[in-house]
């Protein structure tokens, strides 16, 4: 195995006392000195910043750029307006995810596709093979651009102050903007992977990244590692490739439509035409044997990825992601209420379950040979100060 890759913010992480781990071939911070729980809660209460420069950033342009993207992605690229972004999948012919991704349109004739770090090479090979059929070009910008997510109720404030710009994007999810930092372009999107109602992602010149990172921290943001990034996304019910997408524990492909988010990111409109995986996806849309559902344990214990789920004697699925994480209770309802300091621990997870298991239905998770009761949720409730803004 070769040496681990490092992002341009590596020295900042180590200097801040981060515990560094191997993540998809990258040496990344799993948590900083305060620990994952503090980082998780700080993001919900104030603002967390995440180095996501390890993700892949590909620019697609050329005469057939749209046609190419329509063919390799599942969402409808024609519906993507200028200065908007959309969640999408790279499907294979059988309707499994090669990856999930975000497509950004900062410029009229150029698209930016952000993919998972662990799938970067696989995606790059796949896209370069398919693009040969089109008059279009794909360029890897991953090294030139660094990427920082800024998530939480104070995200807008800290970015505005650092960039000296009161308007960041249109005030809706998936809106984009172009700002400037010391004369260089900063691409900003109102997107994220935390479920925060207010959150942004910045794509900045790699050489500006450290200054922007430290500037945000000086304004009150907390550096957040991959550990809390995972608990935040899990609480928000967002899929992670390798858990809710890709292969299941038996090595079988998880159909894209098992993920509830697929219905926003897989389109069958006529204008989109044929694309990789369309036939299989249409079939999935009609109904699936198993789907991903949020669960919360009622009994004591922690449901972990790979644990089996039962209904009576029947095995009905398994946990795809799970942990225990606190959430903060609101002191009282109403416009004056504040988030309390009281932490309530709860074991939450996502599970791939037989689709006849309904919402609010009780199931059992097998934990080290014992059964623990759990209930199927539509989503995990969590509090964020953003909801008051």
């Amino acid at each position, binding site marked *: 195995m070769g040496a681990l890759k490092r992002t341009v913010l590596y020295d900042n992480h180590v200097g801040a006392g981060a*515990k560094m781990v191997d993540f998809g071939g990258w040496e990344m911070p*799993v*948590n900083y000195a305060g*620990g*994952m*729980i503090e980082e998780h809660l700080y993001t919900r209460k104030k603002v967390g910043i995440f180095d996501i420069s390890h993700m892949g950033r590909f620019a697609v342009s050329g005469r057939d750029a749209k046609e190419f993207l329509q063919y390799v992605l599942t969402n409808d690229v024609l519906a993507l307006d200028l200065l908007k972004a959309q969640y999408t999948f790279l499907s294979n012919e059988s309707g499994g995810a090669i990856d999930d991704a975000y497509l950004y349109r900062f410029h009229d004739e150029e698209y930016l596709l952000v993919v998972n770090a662990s799938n970067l090479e696989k995606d790059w090979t796949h896209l370069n093979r398919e693009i040969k059929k089109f008059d279009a070009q794909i360029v890897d910008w991953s090294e030139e651009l660094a990427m920082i997510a800024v998530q939480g109720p104070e995200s807008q404030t800290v970015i505005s102050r650092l960039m000296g710009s009161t308007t960041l994007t249109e005030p809706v999810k998936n809106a984009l903007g172009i700002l400037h930092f010391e004369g260089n372009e900063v691409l900003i999107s109102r997107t994220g992977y935390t479920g925060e109602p207010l959150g942004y992602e910045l794509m900045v010149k790699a050489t500006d990244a450290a200054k922007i990172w430290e500037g945000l921290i000086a304004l009150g943001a907390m550096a957040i590692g991959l*550990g809390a990034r995972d*608990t935040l996304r899990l609480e928000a019910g967002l899929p992670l490739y390798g858990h809710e997408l890709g292969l299941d524990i038996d090595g079988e492909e998880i159909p894209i439509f098992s993920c509830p988010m697929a219905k926003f990111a897989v389109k069958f409109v006529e204008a989109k035409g044929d694309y990789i995986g369309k036939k299989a996806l249409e079939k999935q849309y009609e109904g699936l044997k198993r789907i991903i559902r949020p669960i919360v344990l009622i009994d*004591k*214990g*922690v449901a*972990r990825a790979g644990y089996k789920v039962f209904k009576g004697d029947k095995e009905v699925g398994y946990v795809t992601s799970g*942990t*225990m*994480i*606190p959430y903060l209770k609101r002191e009282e309802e109403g416009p004056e209420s504040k988030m309390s300091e009281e932490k309530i*621990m709860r*074991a939450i997870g996502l599970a791939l379950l037989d689709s006849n298991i309904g919402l609010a239905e009780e199931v059992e998770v097998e934990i*080290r040979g014992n059964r623990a009761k759990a209930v199927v949720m539509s989503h995990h409730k969590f509090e964020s100060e953003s909801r008051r803004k």
Partner: protein
Amino acid sequence: MKTIEELKYSKDHEWVKTEGNLAYIGITDYAQHALGDIVYVELPDVGSRLGKDEVFGVVESVKAASDVYLPLSGTVVQVNEAISDDPALLNQDAFANWMVQIEMENPAELEELMNAAVYVEICNE
């Protein structure tokens, strides 16, 4: 890393403190630090008899579940309910918060445990 001179240590990162025929057992500061935020602890039933190196409990951090091994054979006399109620106590002070108290079956097994200096060495390897 923090250690306490008077305690004995196992290669699996447990500490042992003896009082006559009784032994208090917990996880070391090194172990709590490696685990990160501890969110759940599972302890054995009082009265259970366990052999040396048998799993006596589970410590779960945000990231993972880890078994904890009994460094001495014996019978569980008491478990520390305080850490089941508030597992973060193990992060705050792993040496002040024992997990189980056992009645030792074979105190000679203590000889196989390490002193603080040797334990620090194996952690630094």
